[in-house]
């Protein structure tokens, strides 16, 4: 059971071991209905995060861009889901090809070969594939926060399609496929329970590169750019918190002890992140803001994402608090440096992901370290720290370089940066022919 608590994608053999110690209601054909029911729920919960993200981001932009910004999240549900069915699942979870750059398996194309497959975990492979597909949707949608209010719609669609294929799928394969090289690094692999490197670091770093490449919004930072609707942002943050239980606790691909551990760590880190952000703001600004609380929720959740499988509640408290402190400093630094990561995709997701993936090393539960040590014949926290640092660096460098190339390609062909007149008219009317708040514009 050495990898049972740390792995998203469990091997058949390991799953047999787990299921041997788990009481569950088995159906005749090998389906674990308990695990399947929870994975179905988790899949729906992760999907709920995407409209949540749309509301979170939509509320933060100016009135004229609210629909265009929400469409960045919603359109990802369309583009990434279709790509996932066609090749995404194959590229992520097929066996190594091209020296392990990504996976490939003919039976996974159009999901044609998994129609009646029940995985070793007792979960139909359709459920696993759909669950994983939701992660492929939210990751590019997160990037949109970095270049909000200034990209063309069709350029964005092309960008996320290419980014999903060439950045997300390979990273996902390296970290979560059983033959991925980061999955097998060190004694028991690089720890990324639910997507610290794959989702948050990759999206955050790509967002930073995009914000730098595309340049700031017109008028930034002199013109005030007030949020259109912080109430909607708060609702979105709430939906993200709820959905994150599927994101993290679902990543155990089971319904048992590992699920409970991940769920507890998730709640703990979110609460501690939110509370610490409030306190910092209260001390630093004299007032604690609603947006600050929402940002703290996200910072805590992002930091615990890679760690949810290996840390105990005390560790989760520390991770959430550290993430809020460091993300808060990162946003202050951003304002000093003057680049326009509009909705802090890098400041919260990139930085929070890095904090979580590195600091989790110091809070790993003893049983995990003992298993790693027995597998490798001795394993220390410092050695695991090296593995974590290597995985984080690889994710940063790969995402940054590929994103930069894709940005150039998209910007030179369809055009990604919106023309000046369209940007000042607003994405809603320029690209969608609509107005988000109709005649009720009050801000």
């Amino acid at each position: 059971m050495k990898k049972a608590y740390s792995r998203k994608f469990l091997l058949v053999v390991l799953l047999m071991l787990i299921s041997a110690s788990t009481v569950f209601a088995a159906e005749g054909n090998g389906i674990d209905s308990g695990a399947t029911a929870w994975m179905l729920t988790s899949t729906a919960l992760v999907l709920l995060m995407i409209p949540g993200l749309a509301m979170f981001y939509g509320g933060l932009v100016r009135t004229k861009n609210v629909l265009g910004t929400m469409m960045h999240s919603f359109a990802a549900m369309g583009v990434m889901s279709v790509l996932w069915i066609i090749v995404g699942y194959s590229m992520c979870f097929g066996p190594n090809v091209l020296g392990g750059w990504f996976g490939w398996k003919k039976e996974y194309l159009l999901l044609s070969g998994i129609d009646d497959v029940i995985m070793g975990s007792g979960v139909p492979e359709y459920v696993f594939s759909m669950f994983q597909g939701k992660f492929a949707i939210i990751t590019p949608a997160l990037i949109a926060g970095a270049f909000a209010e200034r990209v063309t719609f069709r350029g964005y669609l092309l960008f996320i399609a290419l980014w999903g294929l060439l950045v997300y799928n390979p990273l996902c394969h390296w970290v979560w496929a059983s033959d991925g090289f980061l999955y097998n690094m060190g004694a028991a692999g690089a720890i990324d329970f639910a997507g610290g490197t794959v989702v948050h670091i990759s999206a955050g770093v790509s967002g930073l590169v995009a914000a730098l490449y595309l340049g700031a919004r017109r008028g930034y930072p002199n013109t005030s750019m007030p949020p259109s609707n912080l109430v909607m942002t708060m609702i979105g943050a709430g939906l993200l918190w709820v959905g994150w239980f599927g994101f993290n606790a679902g990543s155990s691909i089971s319904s048992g002890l590992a699920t409970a551990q991940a769920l507890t760590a998730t709640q703990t880190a979110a609460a501690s992140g939110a509370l610490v952000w409030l306190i910092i703001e209260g001390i630093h600004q004299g007032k604690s803001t609603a947006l600050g609380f929402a940002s703290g929720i996200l910072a805590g959740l992002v930091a615990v994402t890679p760690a949810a499988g290996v840390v105990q509640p005390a560790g989760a408290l520390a991770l959430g608090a550290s993430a809020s402190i460091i993300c808060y400093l990162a946003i202050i630094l951003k304002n000093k440096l003057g680049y326009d990561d509009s909705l802090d995709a890098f400041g919260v997701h990139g930085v929070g992901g890095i904090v979580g993936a590195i600091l989790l090393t110091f809070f790993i539960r003893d049983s995990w370290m003992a298993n790693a040590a027995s597998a490798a014949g001795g394993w220390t926290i410092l050695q695991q720290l090296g593995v974590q640092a290597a995985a984080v660096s690889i994710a940063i460098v790969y995402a940054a370089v590929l994103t930069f190339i894709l940005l150039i390609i998209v910007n030179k062909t369809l055009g990604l940066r919106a023309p000046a007149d369209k940007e000042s008219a607003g994405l809603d009317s320029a690209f969608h022919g609509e107005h988000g708040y109709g005649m009720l514009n009050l801000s």
Partner: protein
Amino acid sequence: MKLITAIIQEDALDAVRQALIEAEITRITVSRVSGHGRQVDEEIYRGQKIIPNLLPKIRLDIAVNEAFVDITVDTIIKSARSAGGGKIGDGKIFITPLEECIRIRTNERGGEAI
């Protein structure tokens, strides 16, 4: 004293505000208004093109002493006119005589209070 009322395009607000600040005219009231002039706009609703009969506009109200009337008006015209010689919908400026101006805090009256 004059009251200058300008109706401008929504997306011109940032530019106008910036230009006015540079011309040292900072005391200003801004409101979101709806209206209809000569401009027609198009929106799309479930595949149908629709023409909203009232368009969103921005209204600026600026009370100035006589010496500032021209610079204020020129600044607004320069910054609110669309690129390429302007287009229908760029808005209008109304100038009305202002009988009195009172600062509530001090009860100052007239040009001093502006």
